[in-house]
């Protein structure tokens, strides 16, 4: 076994005997394109709502809750899908989040939240994960659409203006500090700041 490994190792570090440099370069280049394309296509495929709700855990719980909210159903017909809020749009952040999501595959395999009851027992923890993530990145996924720079206070309600022009404008608070549970049902909020 070790002998074999050694053989391949030395082979890798010797110049090729049969293939030309041009073939190897071009071949590597094309293989690289194919690999990269496949990787990105696969990544984008997992970044769709259809993929998310292909698991009943998502479809029966959080997706049904979303359907009644303004981010799904509204006058102008613009809507947010799961990855719009739950996956960062920048590539590096997206990869980081996708790596974290391998934990969710684990959860899926072992059925951590495969019944309504189990989901409800974990709801607070799951919600806290998302609140923390959004707090840490200054509600980036909210701001991908809701840009503070373009908010017209004269078109907002008085209460909204009071909050947005003070706490939000000064950076003292971020979207998720007040807007919790806007797309999904809230867990028991005992002890959560502001509730």
């Amino acid at each position: 076994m070790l002998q074999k490994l050694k053989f391949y190792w030395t082979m890798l570090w010797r110049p090729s005997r049969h293939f030309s440099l041009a073939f190897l370069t071009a071949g590597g280049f094309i293989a690289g394109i194919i690999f990269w394309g496949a990787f990105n296509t696969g990544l984008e495929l997992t970044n769709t709502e259809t993929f998310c709700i292909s698991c009943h855990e998502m479809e029966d719980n959080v997706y049904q809750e979303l359907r009644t909210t303004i981010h799904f159903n509204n006058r102008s017909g613009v809507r947010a899908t799961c990855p719009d809020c739950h996956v960062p749009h920048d590539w590096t952040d997206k990869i980081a989040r996708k790596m974290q999501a391998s934990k969710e595959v684990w959860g899926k395999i072992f059925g951590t939240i495969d019944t309504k009851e189990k989901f409800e027992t974990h709801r607070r923890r799951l919600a806290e994960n998302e609140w923390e993530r959004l707090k840490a990145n200054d509600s980036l996924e909210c701001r991908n659409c809701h840009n503070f720079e373009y908010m017209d206070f004269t078109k907002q309600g008085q209460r909204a203006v009071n909050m947005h022009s003070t706490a939000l404008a000064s950076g003292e608070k971020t979207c998720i500090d007040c807007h919790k549970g806007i797309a999904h049902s809230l867990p028991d909020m005992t002890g959560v700041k502001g509730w």
Partner: protein
Amino acid sequence: MKTFTTIGFTLLLILSGLSAVTAADNIATLRGSAPLNQEGEAPPMPRPESNDQKRKRNYPMQPPVIPHNVQGYQVDMKVNKCLSCHARKRAEESQAPMISVTHYMDRDGNFLADVSPRRYFCFQCHVEQTNAKPLVNNTFKDIDDILAEEGQ
């Protein structure tokens, strides 16, 4: 005698039946003019008023109407969205009116530390004010009007 009574009753029944039929055409119902075997057209959904302006209460104990949109407000065993602004401990930060002290009392008048369970479900008494037109005329008179009338 007996036959007369029977005939009299029959006539009475027919007459009352006839009058019921004629009256049915004039009765104002919530169905409008849609026949019984057909579904009427639904009126447009009224819009909730959302101007944060307090309305006058029609009588002192009327639960005040909600002057803002409450669509999707979660009020259940886990959480009460209304209380996240209107609770005693939240009113300072939110500057929303605090729910009255009666909401912290049990039915024997003892004060509790938190909202009384019987007052927990806000929408049981407090509703949104929409711009819907009243379906029937309201003959309610404010107590002040009654007192003023009596004073004349």
